[in-house]
């Protein structure tokens, strides 16, 4: 059944930080790491049922970067020689940036995303671009123009989405760190489905320059890691102000990796108040998911935390609000794919027919659906009733979080997704699929940081527990995540 779980020949069973240290100290040849990585990639993509997690590979570029790691400050590179995979909607110079769409098939960006530059400066070797739902619209990676990605833990199931390729790449052991992007849960939900760690930082923490926009006010680059420390190491490398992104915050990137005291303390969460938002544990919640999350909450209590029931009263409005705001922005962001300057063009004599043919043949069904929806809610006569009202409700959702975090609660704990990974093709109703993000969209709407980490399994399938912190408080969130991960140990993966 499994084609990748435990296959650590690409990523090794050693933390990314330890790998980087060994490579930095000269005890590990980055080229040997790359050999293992591409070998693992070939293995998971070969055979009768390939993962289909990787759309483009760049062995030559990765090896060239590996040869130059010692140049200019090599001794300080935190990701020295660590192979990293990047989602296909993040601009890279040496591989196409196609966003899983026909309309950008073969498009190579002449500039590099800030996150990719920072990863490379930190010593990361960018090995591949990963599969995704077209323009990050979807929750299963089934909306890719290049075919669905499989879940490495069960090849008949979806990896979640839209960053399913990156999640699968880490879960299959090909890389220890992968970059994804979030608009409504596209890192956390696949992390939950694939049993890895996925983090969405505070809006503004990581530059969006070079991330192909889906919904600009919600989009944020996120990180997958095989464990909490890997995710922290990856996020540390890409966080921080970028003047090319006007929505990027000026604050310095925080240190996220737990200190030795929290590692060794018996009650590392003494004095920490964990909120349990009641709206995220509805009657209808899958019994297995609920039981797994309850065990994680028990573990948090045993670590010294106080677990307190709290309320985020506008939670039930999050999905409708999200499906107004995100398509509205998407309808505008995707207008540039018009066949005029780059990407696909259906050659027709009249301008208008060229536009229509290019866009209707270039975009898939889900993207088209959201463009139509977004155009509608911004139209004269509907703007006030939909977009403006949605913005008002969005402010209330944000206020819910501000209220909770000013009441003494530092971190919230919830299930990441209402279910475990479902079977490929099992969810065909778009609205049912939208509900897969019901616990994750709120953090995007409010702009707060959130992450998912494995907390156990139901019928062999991973369950993710979600931690949500106040704006800019990733450090506390990572502290709780690291303590919980250590307390759960192997039980998180059983």
């Amino acid at each position: 059944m499994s084609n990748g779980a435990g296959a650590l020949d690409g990523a090794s069973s050693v933390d990314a930080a330890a790998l980087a240290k060994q490579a930095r100290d000269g005890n590990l040849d980055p080229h040997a790491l790359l050999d293992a990585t591409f070998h693992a990639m070939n293995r998971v993509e070969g055979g009768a049922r390939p993962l289909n997690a990787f759309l483009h590979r760049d062995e030559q570029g990765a090896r060239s970067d590996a040869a130059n790691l010692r140049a200019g400050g090599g001794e300080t590179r935190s990701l020295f020689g660590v192979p990293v995979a990047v989602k296909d909607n993040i601009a890279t110079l040496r591989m196409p940036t196609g966003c899983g769409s026909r309309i950008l098939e073969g498009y190579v960006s002449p500039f590099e995303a800030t996150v990719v530059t920072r990863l490379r400066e930190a010593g990361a070797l960018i090995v591949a671009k990963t599969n995704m739902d077209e323009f990050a619209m979807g929750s299963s990676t089934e909306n890719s123009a290049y075919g669905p990605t499989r879940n490495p833990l069960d090849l008949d199931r979806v990896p979640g989405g839209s960053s399913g390729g990156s999640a699968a790449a880490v879960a299959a052991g090909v890389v220890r760190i992968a970059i994804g992007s979030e608009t409504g849960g596209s890192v956390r939900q696949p992390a939950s489905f694939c049993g890895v760690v996925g983090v969405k930082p505070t809006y503004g923490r990581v530059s969006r320059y070079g991330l192909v926009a889906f919904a600009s006010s919600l989009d944020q680059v996120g990180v997958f890691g095989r464990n909490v420390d890997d995710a922290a190491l990856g996020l540390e490398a890409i966080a921080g102000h970028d003047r090319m992104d006007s929505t990027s915050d000026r604050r310095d990137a925080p240190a996220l990796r737990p200190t030795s005291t929290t590692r060794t303390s018996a009650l590392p969460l003494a004095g920490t108040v964990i909120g349990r938002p009641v709206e995220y544990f509805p009657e209808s919640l899958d019994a297995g998911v609920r039981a797994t999350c309850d065990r994680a909450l028990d573990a948090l209590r045993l670590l010294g935390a106080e677990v307190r029931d709290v309320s985020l009263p506008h939670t039930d409005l999050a999905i409708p609000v999200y499906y107004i705001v995100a398509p509205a922005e998407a309808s505008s962001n995707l207008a540039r794919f018009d066949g005029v300057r780059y990407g696909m063009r259906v050659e027709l004599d009249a301008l208008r027919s060229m536009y229509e043919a290019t866009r209707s043949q270039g975009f898939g069904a889900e993207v088209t659906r959201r463009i139509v929806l977004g155009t509608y809610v911004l139209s004269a006569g509907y703007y006030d009733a939909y977009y403006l009202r949605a913005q008002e409700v969005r402010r209330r959702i944000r206020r819910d979080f501000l209220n909770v975090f000013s009441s003494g609660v530092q971190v919230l704990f919830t299930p990441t997704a209402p279910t475990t990974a479902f079977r490929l093709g099992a969810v065909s109703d778009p609205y049912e699929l939208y509900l897969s993000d019901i616990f994750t969209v709120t953090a995007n709407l409010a702009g707060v940081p959130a992450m998912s980490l494995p907390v156990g399994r139901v019928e062999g399938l991973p369950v993710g527990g979600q931690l949500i912190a106040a704006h800019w408080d990733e450090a506390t969130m990572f502290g709780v995540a690291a303590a919980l991960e250590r307390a759960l140990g192997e039980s998180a993966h059983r």
Partner: protein
Amino acid sequence: MTDYELVVGLEVHCQLKTRTKLFCGCRTSFGDAPNQNTCPVCLALPGALPVLNARAVELGVRASLALGCTVHRVSVFARKNYFYPDLPKGYQISQFDRPLATGGSVETGLGRGDGARVALTRVHLEEDAGKSVHDRFAGMSAIDLNRAGTPLVEIVSEPEIRSAAAAGGYLRTLKQILEYTEVSDANMEEGSLRVDVNISVRPRGASALGTKTEIKNLNSFSNVERAIEVEFARQCAVLESGQHVEQQTLLWDDVRNTTRPARSKEGSHDYRYFPEPDLPPLVLDSAWIGGQREMLPELPAAKRARFAAQYGLASSEIEQLSVAPALAAHFEAVAGASGDPKRAANWLLGVLLASLNASGLTVDTHPVSAQRLGVLIRLEADGVLSNSAARQLFGLLEREDAEPLALAKREGLLKVSDDDALCAWIEQVLAEFPAEATRFLAGEAKLQGVLVGHVMKKSKGAADPRKVNQLLAARATG
């Protein structure tokens, strides 16, 4: 037509004088090879993001303050969505419900003292689109995105303009203010100032507005005035015949002196404006706005008032001198150097302007500097040079970088009042014109002027005519 009242509002797009574009570092210069001044941002490549040009904000604020607007501490960029090949993002970043500034007014009289004021609705910042080129390649259109992302301010007036002449006056005043504040080159022919006219008519005395049309494609102030007159007559005729004016966009046809409907009905667009999520609201510090206000240069109206009070010039002279700040500043420099403002005004508006027009130079590049012109004028005022000698000297100064007095001496242009020299010229003239000399010496005094003229000519203008007159009169009676 006299039964109808004309109602006009103007939308002026004005290119800000920045070195780089509104949201990227590309140069704003014109005349470069197509698509040379482009980058991922202004080409709207996937993943590119806008970064606001602080200098453009400063110029927009300066224009708003000079027009008497209230500059808002918080304004918001918005996306105006429409598909067009020269609009790379598929939307224009503009400002919509929260513009940079509101209020303010523009006087229509331009210093003629009959200035009605037209209230402004708003001033906002936005980016320009690129250019579609339809005549370069057979059967194809080409796109040049050098202009895409160039910063503009849009200045919108209330529909308070009641005549074509007032529209012209409004535009001339506005252009002058934009030039004085160095916000824009404000040149309609070059496209750095573009005017759209909203025009409607209504029965005289009515308070409701009639259906408006919008006229585009206007490339000079006089075309704006003519287009308004033509469209006013057309709308009046439509109403007279019992029909209704159709709301539409019209293009001005300069050659046929008429308006014609634009192909696409732009009025029917739904632009789906919404706040630009890639840019935070533009927040300006009140103290900074106050500082910008203090840094405003003297504006045209204030300058005209000061010129009248300080230099005692005629209003026609003031109007001409204050047309452009560079000319006004040059006048003040020449007036200072010469010590004779009245004479300085005459020289600038007469000799210097003619020379500028003939040479295509500007006051700053003209070889006769303010300092040298001032010295020349002083020599004339002090009676050292006659007017004609001074004009000759001006011509010499255009060609030679010499000190005016030294050059006048070298060329023998100084007014000669030495009796011996003058008497010698007089005797030569009397010898050359014996008939006139005889009659003059016989008492025909009216011939004196003719003889003075001959002496002046012989002296190449250097003779002091007052002394020549005295000496001739003495010769006749002596």
